[in-house]
């Protein structure tokens, strides 16, 4: 008897999945048109652009502004008027679990995009480790995917990237509007040498992005004649780095290079350097520490820190001013380091979709057509300058910026264009 009861309850639940699943889809559709635009025409065909970002947890401070950039582009496009009979909506999902970006969650989100026929392109993810889980899926589905911020080189280049393109080895569906860590790491190493720093101690957070960045810096710094005294990986959740810093200090480094994010320890590491008697030692990191959080956590010790960002400085680009103002108006906060990137990425996809609609005689375009158009992007005007993609999906506009923190704010120091 008990088994029967159990079985029937199980069956009822199974039925419920179907129900909620269906209703879920419909509600999402209707609701998103409202979030997309008030001018959405009733009965218009909905085209969705998937957005996958970590918008909760430790990554939220950079994930949310990035998502906002993409959402803003979609809203603007819709307001401006999508091609007749169509309306654009954002379909955004969170890939953070328990406050930390999660590859499995990202993969699940991507599957949700792929299985929704209305999704013609996607933006995201934020993190490289998540991208690794997603690329095989978009590759399989032929869904154009542009990341604003995933900088790990292996996502687009070399055997690593090839291994991610499982289903269609000849087709690339993953693009990014940021430069890669090899460029960022190289830029960091160049800049460090330019400052005359000879001996580096490298610390990374043992995550895809941080370790990747640190590994490139490690190699580049050596090849530029520097000495690497040590290279250590942090344990997640650790808060006390004094022992590690004591170990580093004993070797007498000129600079601590940190590969990782503020959330994974970048700010604390800097803060504790002073306690470990290393206040005078230089500290250099990547874009992972390019957030306000870093200044908050490190406090006074933040001053003097250098970091690179894999994007041009928006204030230096006249094309950015309009975006920055609009962003502030829409979200009532300042732009994040990757907001403009995401905005640009979304616009590239929207343009590709519109082009496909026009070419296809106002029918809902196929994903393959959209993908083709995205891949063909060249000299696309954006707040971060003209954008084009090379055959790997990387931007042809590899401009990096170096900042130095002074009085608790990042100040432009140098712009490095690696194309030259």
């Amino acid at each position, binding site marked *: 008897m008990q088994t029967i009861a159990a079985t029937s309850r199980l069956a009822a639940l199974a039925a419920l999945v179907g129900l909620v699943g269906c209703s879920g889809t419909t509600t999402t559709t209707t609701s998103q048109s409202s979030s997309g635009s008030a001018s959405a025409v009733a009965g218009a065909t909905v085209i969705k652009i998937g957005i996958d970002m970590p918008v909760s947890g430790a990554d939220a401070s950079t994930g949310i502004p990035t998502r906002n950039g993409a959402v803003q582009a979609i809203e603007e496009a819709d307001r401006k008027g999508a091609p007749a009979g169509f309306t654009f909506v954002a379909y955004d999902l969170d890939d953070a679990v328990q406050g930390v970006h999660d590859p499995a969650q990202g993969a699940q989100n991507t599957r949700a995009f792929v299985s929704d026929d209305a999704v013609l392109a996607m933006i995201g993810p934020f993190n490289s480790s998540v991208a690794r889980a997603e690329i095989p899926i978009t590759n399989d589905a032929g869904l154009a995917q542009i990341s604003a911020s995933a900088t790990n080189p292996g996502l687009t280049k070399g055997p690593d990237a090839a291994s991610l393109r499982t289903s269609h080895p000849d087709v690339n569906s993953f693009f990014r509007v940021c430069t890669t860590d090899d460029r960022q790491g190289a830029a960091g190493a160049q800049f460090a040498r330019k400052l005359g720093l000879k001996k580096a101690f490298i610390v990374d957070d043992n995550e895809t992005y941080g*370790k990747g960045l640190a590994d490139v810096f490690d190699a580049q710094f050596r090849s530029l004649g520097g000495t690497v005294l040590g290279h250590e990986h942090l344990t997640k959740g650790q808060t006390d780095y004094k022992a590690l810093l004591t170990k580093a200090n004993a070797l007498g480094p000129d600079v601590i290079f940190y590969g990782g994010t503020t959330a994974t320890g970048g700010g604390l590491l800097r803060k504790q350097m002073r306690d470990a008697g290393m206040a005078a030692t230089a500290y250099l990191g990547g874009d992972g520490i390019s957030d306000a959080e870093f200044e908050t956590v490190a406090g006074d010790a933040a001053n003097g820190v250098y970091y690179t960002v894999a994007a041009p400085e928006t204030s230096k680009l006249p094309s950015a001013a309009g975006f920055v103002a609009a962003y502030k108006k829409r979200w009532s906060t300042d732009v994040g380091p990757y907001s403009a990137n995401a905005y640009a990425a979304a616009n590239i996809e929207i343009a590709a979709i519109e082009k496909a609609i026009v070419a296809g005689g106002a029918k809902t375009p196929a994903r393959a057509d959209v993908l083709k158009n995205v891949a063909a992007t060249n000299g696309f005007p954006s707040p971060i300058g003209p954008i084009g993609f090379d055959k790997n999906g990387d931007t042809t506009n590899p401009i990096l910026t170096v900042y130095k923190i002074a009085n608790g704010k990042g100040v432009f120091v140098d712009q490095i264009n690696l194309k030259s």
Partner: protein
Amino acid sequence: MTRRHAALGFLGLALVVYPFVDRNNSHVDFLANAGAFILLALGLNIVVGFAGLLDLGYAAFFAIGSYSYAMLASQQFGIHVPFWLMLLIAPVVAALFGLLLGAPTLRLRGDYLAIVTLGFGEIVPQTFLNLSQYTNGPNGISSLDQPSLFGHAFGFSATPYYYVLLGLIALGILAARNLQNSRLGRAWMAIREDELAARHMGINTTATKLAAFALGASFSGLAGVVYAAKLDLVSPDEFGFNVSVLVLSMLVLGGMGNIWGVIVGSFVLSFINSFLLPQSTSLAHAAGFVNVDFTNYRFMLYGVILVTMMLFRPEGLIPSRQRAAEFHEAILDPALAAQEQSEYEGVAR
């Protein structure tokens, strides 16, 4: 008996035809993921539900199963063991690790055992992360071999995995039921009830507990293989303490010791996790509450489930008769219980 068989048959049939009825791949994908967790829960149920050993590091065996597949069926070392063979190998590997951990620790008292397993659960993924020369560290191992059946590759559709899991769960249920009604199953129950008396029945308590550990681990290893193949990736941060607690919550919610309870518990929690919370979040966002994210509070939910269930219905929603009785009637005279406990601890070595 016939009604029960009919109900089961109907359920089975419904599950088999489901992907043909619901063409939404994300639903099938969800069900396949839920299936992996059902498999995990069935395994943990052997350890916690049957043998009464609290294992807080169960995700470690999941990791071991996943990494076995990733290392033995990918470009990583150029080894390409077929998926179907891995379904045999990985459970054995996981079981061996279960023995390795269990052998020295199973004489510990229940709560100490829980902590040791928790420690083990922390060490294993950290080790996979740190040994980056073999595991690619934080990047994990990607592009694993795609299973294929009669020349048809599984690809990225969830449907084939859904069927594989359906089959494995059916086998898992069968295995769990067989175990429960056997010499070994009785020995587990006996140990849970009274370890000292069990020894007097000629039961080798250490070996019997080890068997539970190894068998539970093997389920986890099996789930790991399928999960890794389906995700096409393993990375060290998928196997943390929260996964162990999630599976434990499934057991607590459904009813420890009851196979159907455990299945329902894991299904309900998977459903809430992967469907209800994200969908409600979307709804909230649509309604203008853009900063609401219900998925953030899934762990709050686990916590509430664990606490309220233990306080008010410790036997779970669909309890095993025996467990229900234990929780509700076992509150004997506390002094007597304490005395017996100390008496027993005095003699146990």
